């Protein structure tokens, strides 16, 4: 074989599909990414009903769960049987701002699926008995999760970042579940699902007729714009916080720091810096703490953008004897990026890798729908990613170092260790 590695072609641009866009007669926006040899499609309903909303802990999450427990017209069994019979899959994701319901199904059933979705989302029964059993399931699930050091670390971190009384900052206190009533959830549903407009995104091989079905199903909703609630955030002092757990084989580490968000100054730079530090398998953190020291099975950094405030996180689970050493190595890597310029070779590597990742981000109609739904809360156009690609390919080692000096101060990170 040729012992020379084949030449690599750089990605100079990414093809981004332009969404079909329209509105229902009541103003509800509908976007579409059409593509498909296979006769299947996806339909996303994105409501501004995420974890930031609601007056009580768990409220937004339970509201989205209880929606799926039957409508005022049909029982849970009838609805679920209809979904399954039509080969449909439902996925729900809830973030800070959005609560998103996604339906995947063969496109020949578009009419039935829009009807079912309209019934579930607009007319949920929200009965006390359904809520009671949901609470049992949630309690059970949380009890299992609380056994995991990584889960505990994340929960402690949320509390430290947002404050105990902030809807994003609460610890999963099982007692607080009792405060949630089915009438409270009915109110939540009315306020956040019926009185604010969802965004609808279609992707795949959706037939033209689906617009007509959506009009029939959803044009009776009121269209009001949603507002991000103005909440007091109580961020804790950046230092090390240790918590005990009975699970003794590994400790969980997590670090967090506020960073710029999408559309803000330096956002592109911090995204690139994050990639270098811990965003991919060949990152500084992985190379050191996993490949060189063997302390862990995985260590990553990521930026979680949010209208409530964007943060960079570093997460890992390390062998129980290694938590202090691992923290020291993380600090070393951050300092390293501040004191030494990244080599051209390494920067080229990151640029190529990141370009490939961006290409993959737009690989197909479902991926496009995903990108659009995460861009909505920041009011960004999808072609923003083309700007990012161009900026990333032109960034210099000096600019990386500057960004590290500005944002990568280990002592400004809140640090949590959950261990024996």
């Amino acid at each position, binding site marked *: *074989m*040729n*012992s020379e*590695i*084949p030449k*690599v*072609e750089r*990605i100079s641009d*990414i*093809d981004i599909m332009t969404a079909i866009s329209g509105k229902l007669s009541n103003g509800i926006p509908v976007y579409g990414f059409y*593509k498909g*040899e*296979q*006769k*299947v499609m996806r339909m996303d309903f994105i409501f501004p009903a995420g974890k930031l909303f609601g007056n009580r802990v768990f409220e937004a999450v339970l509201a989205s769960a209880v929606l*799926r427990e039957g409508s005022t017209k049909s029982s*849970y*069994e009838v609805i*679920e049987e209809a*979904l*399954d*019979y*039509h*080969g*449909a*899959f439902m996925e729900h994701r809830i973030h800070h701002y959005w609560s998103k319901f996604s339906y*995947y*199904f*063969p496109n020949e059933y578009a009419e039935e699926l829009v009807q079912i979705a309209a019934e579930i989302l607009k007319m949920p029964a929200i009965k006390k008995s359904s809520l009671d*059993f949901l609470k*049992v*399931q949630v309690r*059970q699930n949380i009890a*299992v999760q609380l*056994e995991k050091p990584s889960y505990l670390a994340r929960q402690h971190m949320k509390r430290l970042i947002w404050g105990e009384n902030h809807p994003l900052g609460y610890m999963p206190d099982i007692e607080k579940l009792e405060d949630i009533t089915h009438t409270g959830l009915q109110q939540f549903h009315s306020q956040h699902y019926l009185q604010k407009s969802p965004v609808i995104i279609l992707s795949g091989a959706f037939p033209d007729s689906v617009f007509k079905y959506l009009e029939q199903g959803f044009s009776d909703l009121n269209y009001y714009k949603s507002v991000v609630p103005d909440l007091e955030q109580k961020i804790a002092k950046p230092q090390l916080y240790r918590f005990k757990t009975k699970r003794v*084989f*590994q400790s969980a580490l997590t670090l967090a720091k506020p960073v710029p968000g999408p559309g803000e100054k330096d956002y592109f730079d911090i995204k690139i810096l994050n990639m270098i530090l811990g965003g*991919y*398998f*060949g990152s500084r953190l992985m190379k050191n703490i*996993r*490949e*060189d020291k*063997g302390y*862990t*099975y995985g260590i990553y950094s990521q930026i979680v953008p949010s209208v409530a405030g964007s943060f960079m996180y570093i997460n890992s*689970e*390390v*062998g129980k004897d290694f938590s202090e050493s691992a923290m020291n190595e993380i600090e070393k890597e951050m300092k390293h990026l501040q004191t030494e310029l990244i080599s051209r070779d390494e920067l*080229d*590597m990151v640029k*190529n*890798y990141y370009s*490939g*990742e961006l*290409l*993959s981000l*737009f*690989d*197909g109609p479902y991926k496009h729908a995903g990108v659009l739904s995460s861009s909505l809360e920041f009011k960004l156009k999808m072609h923003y990613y083309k700007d990012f690609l161009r900026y990333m390919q032109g960034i210099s080692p000096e600019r990386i170092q500057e960004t590290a000096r500005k944002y990568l101060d280990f002592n400004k990170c809140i640090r949590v260790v959950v261990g024996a």
Partner: protein
Amino acid sequence: MIPFTSETLSNGLTILVNEDKSTPMAVCNMLYKLGAVNEDPEITGLAHLFEHLMFGGTKHVPDFDSVLQYAGGDNNAFTNNDVTNYYDILPAQNIETALWLEADRMQNLKLDAQSIKVQKDVVMEEFKETHLNQAYGDLDQLLRSLAYKIHPYRWSTIGLSLEQIQKVDRDICMDFRKRYYAPNNAILAISGNVNASEIFMMAEEHFGHIKASEIPAKDYPQESLQNEQRRTEKEDDVPHDVISVGFHMPSRLHDDYYTMDLISDILANGNSSRFKTKLVKQAHVFTELDAYIYGSIDPGLLIINGYPESSVSLNDAEQAIFEELDLLANTEIADRELQKVKNKALSSWMFINQNAKNKAFHLAYFEMLGNASLINTEEEKYREVVENDIQKAAKRYLRRTNSSVINYKAKK
């Protein structure tokens, strides 16, 4: 329909190509026909450890990942009982980099002491993270030990113990590589925005001269029929009781495989499934109840896992499960219900195969089973299952005397 073309090199490497112009990416999937099933019972976990070692570098490149990343690509791998599978996904114009890398590590892998030590440590951390430090982490191993007395499926892919992984040394790794990592023990499948004839040319250039090896014949005992129930109990510091029941089922190529897959769907796939509506939502016997099949090549298991509601005893929970299974065995399923699970299975298959990564893997996997074109007969096999098949299979396989039961008790 997934169209593809294939060629086999003189050294036995089979290459399959599915052209897909709808994506800017290409996936290179290299499947080695070996898994935990091929391991020495004294050195279990080796196939999985070796998977890690495959990223450790060759005489040409210091490590696998950086070369692929430089080409804008990403990769992953997994090991299970039957296969070790590697896939690389990258911008289609750089597919040759992936081919070059796979050929390079197939023949030039560096197995030095440092690399072996680090990966052993990483794998031991993985073992701790997934099996020791998690509630119910050993449930899979417990069930395997009970259900399989002599067949190699009796151990988990991660291995039986940290001690066995610790024992692995360079000689063991070299021997393993010689036996299993050869072109005639591998299948290469590519799916994406590529040109098949170009791929075949590149494959010949990069893999053509790699020598075939003598692959050891499968030499392990088959499990004999189970004809009485097996039970075991474990008590641990976990939040809830769990019950796990495993039933022996036929091999991947057996006619009944598809029936058993649909049975697991009837029982627990989707919210309108029997377990979820009757035993979870309505009767509140369980807060969670699942059923799935191994999907293994040799005869595998159909497994039912459940978390009983806190006021329900493990005995009563077990009773409830077997009552449902008896119902399935004694009453013919309604037309609509069978059609429902078929619709879901077919829809699922369609969605899964929209993705180049899954297409490439499936092509390689079906080739391993005997012929890649089996990928296009899957749908028909599900469609062919009739009501009577369900009843017969339930009677035959879902018997108490064919079951292994784990009562995983929470310490009070």
